[in-house]
């Protein structure tokens, strides 16, 4: 928790402050770009469909990253919109010098740090949906799925509640590393670059987080 705050202050949360990789575009960087980077460049060139593809691919991960951190759907929605609006505004100065996901989650991470600075760090994430602002159970929104069966639905709900509780009990740094790894698909080096920590530190945080979550689910498996 203490590690996140200062770095977030350095990075800021404005559109300009969330563009650490912006700079002149080089052919070399473009050659190494993946689909995400090319689509972002296409959107910067005026292709709105490229943005739609990028958004459809990454909206769930970013949203869950914010929701799991702040524990409030309304706040998560606000931060989620800010993140993507920053992406939209920063399209003109975007340069594919890093992975698009790293750049995207850096924006989300900085926005989250800004929220913590103003509201105070979330000590816990509401587990089990006891709050009216909590997101609904995802399994309940799938009609006709196996989750409609009472036993399956009850089991899944129990797993979700216990995982959410276990995740909320994690330290912020470990939770941040776990969510960036699990929802953003980032590697250790990318998480270390994003959070400003060392790779080994990130590796340790991640290992601890996974061990606690597995222990929480051990009796269910």
């Amino acid at each position, binding site marked *: 928790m203490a590690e996140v705050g200062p770095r977030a202050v350095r990075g800021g949360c404005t559109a300009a402050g969330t563009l650490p990789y912006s700079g002149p575009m080089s052919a070399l960087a473009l050659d190494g770009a993946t689909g995400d980077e090319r689509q972002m460049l296409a959107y910067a060139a005026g292709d709105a469909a490229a943005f739609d593809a990028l958004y459809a691919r990454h909206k769930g991960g970013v949203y869950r990253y914010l929701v799991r951190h702040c524990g409030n759907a309304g706040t998560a929605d606000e931060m989620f919109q800010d993140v993507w609006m920053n992406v939209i505004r920063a399209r003109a100065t975007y340069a594919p010098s890093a992975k698009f996901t790293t750049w995207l989650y850096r924006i989300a991470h900085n926005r989250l740090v800004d929220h913590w600075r103003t509201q105070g760090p979330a000590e816990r994430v509401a587990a089990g949906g006891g709050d009216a602002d909590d997101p609904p159970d995802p399994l309940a929104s799938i009609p006709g799925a196996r989750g409609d069966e009472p036993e399956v639905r009850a089991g899944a709900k129990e797993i*979700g509640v216990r*995982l959410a509780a276990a995740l909320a009990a994690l330290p912020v740094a470990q939770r941040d590393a776990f969510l960036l790894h699990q929802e953003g698909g980032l590697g250790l080096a990318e998480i270390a670059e994003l959070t400003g920590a060392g790779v080994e530190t990130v590796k340790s945080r991640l290992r601890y987080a996974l061990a606690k979550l597995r222990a929480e689910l051990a009796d269910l498996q």
Partner: protein
Amino acid sequence: MTTPNHDDDAMRDPRFDAAWRGVSREEPPPSLDAAIRAAARREVGAGPQREVTSVPEATRPERWWWPLAAAATIGAIAIGVLQLVAQDRDTADSTQAIISDMPAGSVAETAQSAPRAAPTPTVSPEPAVAAGAAPPPSPTAPRASERPTRDVAAPRASPAPAAAKAVPPTAATPLRAPRPFPAETGGPDAGTATPPTPSVAPPGTGDAASRDAPAAPQVLTQQDPAAIQPQRAGVVPGSPTQPQRAAPLHEDRATSTAAPVSSGAIRAREDAARAARSVAITPRAEIGRAPVAGSASTERHADAAVTAKAGERASLSVGEWIALIRELVADGRRDDVTLELKAFRFAHPDAEALLPPDLRAWRSDTR
């Protein structure tokens, strides 16, 4: 970009990942999705705004002139085509009259390649013909100075009797009747090979200076029909033989009803009319080759008889033709002699030099 670390795989637990994905399915609300997508489209100026700008009302000011432009283009093309068609028609008329004259070289080649129409008896040229090689003291010489315009209109009719004598009679052009206006002799040595262009210049006046004299087209167009007629007949205007030859010409015209004037005469008239139209635009170098057009239809009847006769005799050499005329003289066939002499003069611009003195001075009323 960062390279993937092998430790990342070590951190992955498939069972835990599956369990996590089963319970972590939160998605942003659709309203938020729509707002973000709309903002993205607004920023790049894409999306429904472009469809609004493509309505006809928005583009009408750019299209109102299309029908006018199309009509103007079609009109311009139509005018251009009409002008080209008219110009091509005139050009075709003029070039047809000129193209009908074959160069002497091609005529000679044609004559050599084509079978001969009739066997040509080997008649040795008479001494009179050879004597005529030297330019006679023509009484027309001063007349040439009197009427220089006629000399200007004269084609390249430089008689070369020596060369004509050297040319074998087998080089004669096959008869291509009707042939109202024989092709021009391309060179001096072709004088007997092909029937030459009807000459309007007297012998001895076809020098280079007179040929290259300017203002030939104007002269041709200004010639009176009365002056053209004796030219076509090979008669030198003002010569001692002119009155006597002009009269039989009209006699022949009166008696030429039995002559084959049907197709040959009609073609001759058409060619003459076409040549008359093309004289005004024919280059000066082409004037000599262009046939001189007669203006009166009555004269054309006589011309038709003469040209028909000349066409008949085209296969004969000069010596053969002169021998034939002598036979007619001996038989007392005056009308035939007159017609033959006219045809001879018509076919040979240098007829006065080629004819022996007795035939040159022959009259229908003399014996």
